[in-house]
């Protein structure tokens, strides 16, 4: 892979995980410093609530810069086990969690579990719609039996 060589084009070098990750760490570190410097800093002898976070933000910014520069200039070898992003799974799983969070207080346990399962099951790309519905019904019934009946958690099956 030419990505591993020093002669890679600038755009490709900027897309390296180390450069992106380092830049993100730099940005987050700077943000933490700005936010925490709004809290009372105190002195080294009597540290205020802002002292430690400002220190951490600074450290994070320095480490992020170092990582970004090291992987920009160096030859970050492409690793064989690098994962390919799976946007379908990401969107489906997170949307399923969101459905659960939205439905649980409004509609109750059974609709929340069913919503989570039907949406999240799309992430594998190997589920037929009917299969997802059957799985949702089974898991909703199980969740109700285990958590509501078995453990007695305050989770009504349906909320109207």
């Amino acid at each position, binding site marked *: 892979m030419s990505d591993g060589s*020093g002669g890679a084009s600038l755009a490709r070098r900027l897309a390296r995980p180390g450069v992106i990750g380092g830049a993100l760490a730099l940005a987050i570190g700077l943000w933490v410093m700005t936010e925490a410097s709004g809290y009372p800093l105190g002195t080294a002898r009597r540290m205020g609530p802002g002292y430690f*976070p400002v220190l951490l933000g600074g450290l994070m910014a320095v*480490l992020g810069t170092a*990582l970004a520069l090291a992987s920009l200039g*160096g030859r970050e070898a492409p690793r064989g086990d690098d994962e390919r992003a799976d946007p379908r799974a990401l969107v489906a799983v997170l949307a399923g969690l*969101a459905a659960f969070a939205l439905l649980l207080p409004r509609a109750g346990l059974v609709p929340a579990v069913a919503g989570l399962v039907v949406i999240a099951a799309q992430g*594998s790309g190997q589920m037929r719609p009917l299969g997802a519905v059957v799985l949702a019904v089974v898991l909703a019934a199980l969740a109700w039996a285990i958590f509501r009946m078995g*453990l007695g958690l305050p*989770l009504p099956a349906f909320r109207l």
Partner: protein
Amino acid sequence: MDLVGNLALGFQTALSPAALLFCFLGVTLGTLIGVLPGIGAMAAIAMLLPVTYHVPPTEALIMLAGIYYGAQYGGSTASILLRLPGTPQAAVVTLDGYPMAQQGRAGVALFVTTIASFAGSVLGVLLLAGFAPLLARAAMAFQAPEYFALMVLGLMAAALLTQGSPLRGLIMVVAGLTLGTVGTDLQTGSFRFVFGRPELVDGIGLVAMAMGLFGVSEVIANAARGGAPAARRPRWREMIPSRADWRASAPAMLRGSGIGAGFGALPGTGSSIASFVSYAVEKRIARDPSRFGKGAIEGISAPEAANNAAAQTAFIPTLTLGVPGDAVLALMLGALIIHGIIPGPGLIEQQPTLFWGLVASFVLGNLMLLILNLPLIGLWISILRIPYRLLYPAILVFICIGVFSIRNSVFDIWLVLVFGGLGYGMRLLRFEPAPLLLGFILGPLLEQYLRRAMTVSRGDPMIFLERPISAAFLGLAAALLCWSLVSGLRRTRATPEA
């Protein structure tokens, strides 16, 4: 009390029906998740943390610990049969275990890894029972500077002794420390990074964060994985190793146990580094290193012994110093704190039933694992064939309800969502979440010790170097940092120039 009396107390605790049940549940579940690729011990323990709110602390800890060391046993099964490591520690076992299976020696490999796991665990438990009380007594003299230095050393080890790059590990630790500052500042009572959300006043929920970072991100990364192909169940007669196998693997198990026990006892280093190091050692001292990777039996017995020994000795720093051996133990430390038990040098004296009951449960749990793993191997092989597409929605349901049940908070489910997305992003950018979690759990303590030490010294940071023990810890941490930066540089230089 003497060791015999203590152990008697421990067995009395661990042999109670409730403790036995939780121990059995823990090791069975541990084996299950160890066998199944795509769910690690970390995610499983995070998922079960809510359950432990309803169980007394000793039983809760016995179960969580059972999951942890049970997963070390189960991890090798899929590595050998299918070249799919069930846990990160078992990745090394694929190197020689899978070739053995291809040569028709899968049965022997499974038998030897189980025996190696048992041998390593036994040595680890012996060290735990023998050394933990001594270490705790020595640590009684520790004050704020020593604790601060020890935690810095533990965090350095967690950040630097991983497979990934040292800079990434350090960034993760600092990120975790920063997340740990969210909420109310303990000394002044003022809010930090709360942004008007009442849910954040007590800080970010440990369980929600761990489930997002480990559980949800693992689910996303594995969602597209199909079911594992069918593997043949080895017959009993095929499992018995030959005399040559025994001769080769017995000393390897001993060496592996020793290496594992050492790495496990270090704060911050987990069992996966132990298994990698012991594999490297076996390969270096072998008369014919070329056999490795082609089914050398030392190549599976040493790392298996190592990761199990490490899993047991990792409890030494966790229970005696309050500094977790690795990220999973950090989570268990969190569970103890939830129950109002503060781990530290006083724990063994103040909670003898907890400590010795746990030690005794390790002995019983390892015996159970021996039975679970050898005769029941067929069961685990058939479980491997459950397609992941059916499994992961169930995992998500369990995560959601579990998180919600802790404090009936929908906000915590949103936290799981956020950390799940973050954790997946970190995976793609090659950041490991374990050091972050360690930083998050140790962060509030680290800050308190830092502030206390600096108040005592009137703002003079030299206090950390004037006290011999804290200076030694910090010196070790600095040496570790230099060593890993230098070896990191050398690795970069070794790659060919363009």
